[in-house]
């Protein structure tokens, strides 16, 4: 790519490292930055710098935060005895959208993935066990993904968390609201049957 000036090549190379950005997109973005105002370019650079400088992991739940402990862990109105375990920080937003969960979180930063060489040591599991060990937790909700690896993670955690005083639950898997049973695949249907409740 010798046809660009060195600073341009550098920017394109950096942009190409972003997920989903190929050579073409990187060039397009780089030219956009080049054409934008000095203030806009400066704001972009500052935003990137600040996100690294001011964000860190919450020392309690491993959520990404600018204050430690994070807003959930330091909230006086949230039930600190109810912990929802998720794979990624972005999963928290999905639970928060329900506006019906008033507990706190624990972010694993991944799931058990033998094909990628990710075992229990690579996830934030030890800190979850410590949280439970220190008392103060009544229930752990396992909200990992309904995939082979998410299930393996939930099964693993449920056995590691087994204690007489602790309730461990798994979120239900089943048919999406507003869909039709006729078009539900057999695994989902099976899981929906397993997760049925008394009425």
């Amino acid at each position, binding site marked *: 790519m010798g046809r660009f000036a060195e600073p341009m090549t550098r920017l394109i190379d950096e942009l190409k490292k972003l*997920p*989903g950005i190929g050579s073409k997109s990187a060039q397009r973005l780089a030219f956009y930055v080049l054409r934008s105002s000095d203030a806009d370019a400066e704001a972009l650079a500052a935003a990137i710098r600040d996100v690294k400088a001011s964000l860190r992991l919450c020392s309690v739940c491993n959520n990404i935060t600018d204050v430690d402990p994070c807003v959930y862990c330091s909230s006086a109105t949230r039930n600190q005895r109810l912990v929802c375990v998720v794979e990624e920080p972005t999963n928290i937003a999905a639970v928060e959208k329900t506006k019906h969960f008033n507990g706190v979180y624990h972010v694993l930063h991944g799931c*058990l*993935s*033998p*094909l*990628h*060489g990710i*075992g*229990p040591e690579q996830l934030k599991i030890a800190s979850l066990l410590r949280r439970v060990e220190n008392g103060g937790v009544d229930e752990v909700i396992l909200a990992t993904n*309904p*995939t*082979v*690896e998410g*299930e*393996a*993670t939930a*099964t*693993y955690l449920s056995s590691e968390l087994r204690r007489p005083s602790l309730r461990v639950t798994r979120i239900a898997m089943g048919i*999406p609201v507003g*869909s039709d049973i006729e*078009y539900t*695949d*057999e*695994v*989902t249907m*099976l*899981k929906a049957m397993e997760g049925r409740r008394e009425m």
Partner: protein
Amino acid sequence: MALKESEAIVLRTYPLREADLLVTLFTRLEGKVHAVARSAKKSKRRFGGALEPLTYVRAYYEDRERQELARLDSCDVLESPLADEVSYSRAIALEHVAELLDELLPDREANDAVFRLTLSVLAQMQHEAFWMPITYFELWMTRLMGYLPELSECIVCGRELNGDRAFFHALADGLMCLDDKRLASSEISAESRAIAAQMFRAPVESFTGASWPRSSASDLRKFLLQTLQRHIEKKLVTAGMLEKM
């Protein structure tokens, strides 16, 4: 181009662009096929749980002109690993099978023997006893890929090993007698060699029921993985995970 239909086993998926998935399938029709599942990440409705590793599916796909990657149209689940409880050890065993198939099979070359082997072994991986089906799968894969040396004679002097001690080495292409073994060789017991001989004569189902602790034929598995890894010239990620299990 025409839509192809084939039974298939999902080996692995990789995220591709925004919402697409790159899927590696082991199809009965033409072996290992790489295909793009459009919008599979966003719209789970189209593929549901069908793209989870080791799901046995009926796949519908089409080749695209001048493109290496096929387009995956849809998948019907025939048998899902999620139907039974997925423990961590079961996930390792399942993904070990996926990794072996992915690494050992060439692209677009049907192999019905391996396909049938995989289905029969997967059927034995529904519960917690994995070491037997894993051993069976590794042994047969090594043989079907043409990498298995003669287990009954020394590769150096040609002497019959039956009844005698036998050794293997990461860099040697077969077993050696006590006199010819290299430095830092490992021993493979007569018992494990007998298990291998039995496994070549009987289907995997006939080995269920007997207790199979991790220690059963562990020397045979070590020999097989060394042999396979020497041929593919890389370490298998799941082999390391099995070791730590």
